[in-house]
């Protein structure tokens, strides 16, 4: 495949990715919003829309703002195909983002390239399928698995999946970018030390921590170019 053919092929691939991604997002949206009404029809009791509206005002607004920020921050990390899939399948911070970054590192691809777009899509698709299979098996074997999953001995292990994930990923990223990582780590440690109640808002604080680190990264980038 020569350069011209490659460019044409990638243009076609990207174009079709957007078409499939848009259709998949729209269809999933309709299915997910339609399901409560379908279930309501089966139960003979439709959703209480005024109560849903009040509940949306109490918690939904926060999640709406958070979703907008997630879209702006994570789409460039995931690329187009990975972006569509990740927002359909969810669990971004605790699974899909670290998974795609890990695959990118292992495959040695660079942000913005076609190779990165492909690796990111493969990673999110494989990760989503594994989650679907694990959950389906878990639901199928719910009764025999209950003693293991609810065992008091194993409870601390399952309660610490996220620290285990960020310990491993932290080593990889801090090792290669120690100077860049020191300031945000120190800043966030001091913040949680002096305002411990913020621990329940960790997912929201990712944005300012990320913004500061990007700012520092930009200064380093300007100096090196």
């Amino acid at each position, binding site marked *: 495949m020569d350069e011209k053919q490659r460019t044409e092929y990638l243009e076609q*691939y990207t174009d079709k990715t957007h078409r499939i991604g848009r259709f998949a997002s729209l269809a999933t949206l309709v*299915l997910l919003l339609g399901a409560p009404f379908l279930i309501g029809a089966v139960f003979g009791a439709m959703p209480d829309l005024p109560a849903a509206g009040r509940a949306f005002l109490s918690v*939904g607004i926060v999640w*709406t703002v958070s979703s907008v920020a997630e879209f702006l921050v994570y*789409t460039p990390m995931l690329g187009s195909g990975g972006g569509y899939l990740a927002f359909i399948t969810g669990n971004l911070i605790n699974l899909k983002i670290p998974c795609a970054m890990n695959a990118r590192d292992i495959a040695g691809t660079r942000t913005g390239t076609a190779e990165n777009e492909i*690796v990111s899509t493969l990673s999110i698709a*494989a990760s989503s399928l594994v989650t679907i299979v694990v959950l389906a098996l878990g639901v199928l074997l719910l009764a025999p698995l209950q003693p293991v*999953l609810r065992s008091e001995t194993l409870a601390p292990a399952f309660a610490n999946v996220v620290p285990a994930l960020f310990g491993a990923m932290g080593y990889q*990223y801090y090792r290669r970018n120690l100077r860049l*990582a020191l300031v945000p780590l120190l800043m966030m440690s001091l913040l949680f030390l002096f305002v411990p109640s913020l621990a329940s808002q960790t997912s929201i604080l990712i944005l300012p921590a990320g913004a500061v680190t990007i700012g520092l990264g930009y200064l380093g980038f300007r100096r090196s170019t």
Partner: protein
Amino acid sequence: MTALCAKFYHKKGRMYIKEEFSMQEQLNSPVLYLICGAIILFVAAICVIFLFRAWRAGLAIGMEPGRLRRAVTSSAAFTVLPSVGILLGVIALSGSLGTPWPWLRLSVIGALHYETQVAQAAAEQVGIGGLSAQGMTPRAFATIALLMSGCIMWGMVLSLFFNRRYTEKLGTKEENAKKGKKGFADTAMTAMFIGLISCYLGSYIGGAATGSGIVPLAVCAASAAAMALFTALSKHRRLSWLESFSVAGSMLIGMLAAVVLA
């Protein structure tokens, strides 16, 4: 089949679940499994389509099959343990919402930290006080289910309308990457991820210092030490296969440390 039919009746051409069945029985009824399972199957099919298209495109532009295989196997291995954690979320929610709905929510679009909070807020607003099997009614369940779907859909909505424009605008020019010029996008993505990790590590350090518990920080340290070992081992030619499983293996060691320390 007789047992299945016995749970339903028809009225004016519509199928209803018999009222004498308890709410938990209704929430775990075959119809709910069918509705939720069908949606999950649809999303799984989308994932398969994206996977095959990306694989084919990778081969077409000259990427080595081994590189593509490593991306898939490392992602699959990476996902197993967090998925077991997500399964625990399904189990936790199944006590009040039945099994099929949390199964759908956490397989598609949902997030572990989000579901309980939104379900709880919806339960309060529909007047059942909180998430519990005792107070649950069909109307309360349908309302909670709607809110759980509605609050977190915005990422998908934005993706639907703006993914194309946004990725085209932000992407580093491929010619630059091919010429070896490293764009700022690469640095920015690494920086954003370091910010994300720092946020969590900072919360564990702060938690340990303020007496909230040292286990998360110790788990982090154990997992990082295991990762260092895996990284060193995978540099040897005969052990390079370890790289795909290094994060999953490190996580397992970190989680074992939590069992030992607790």
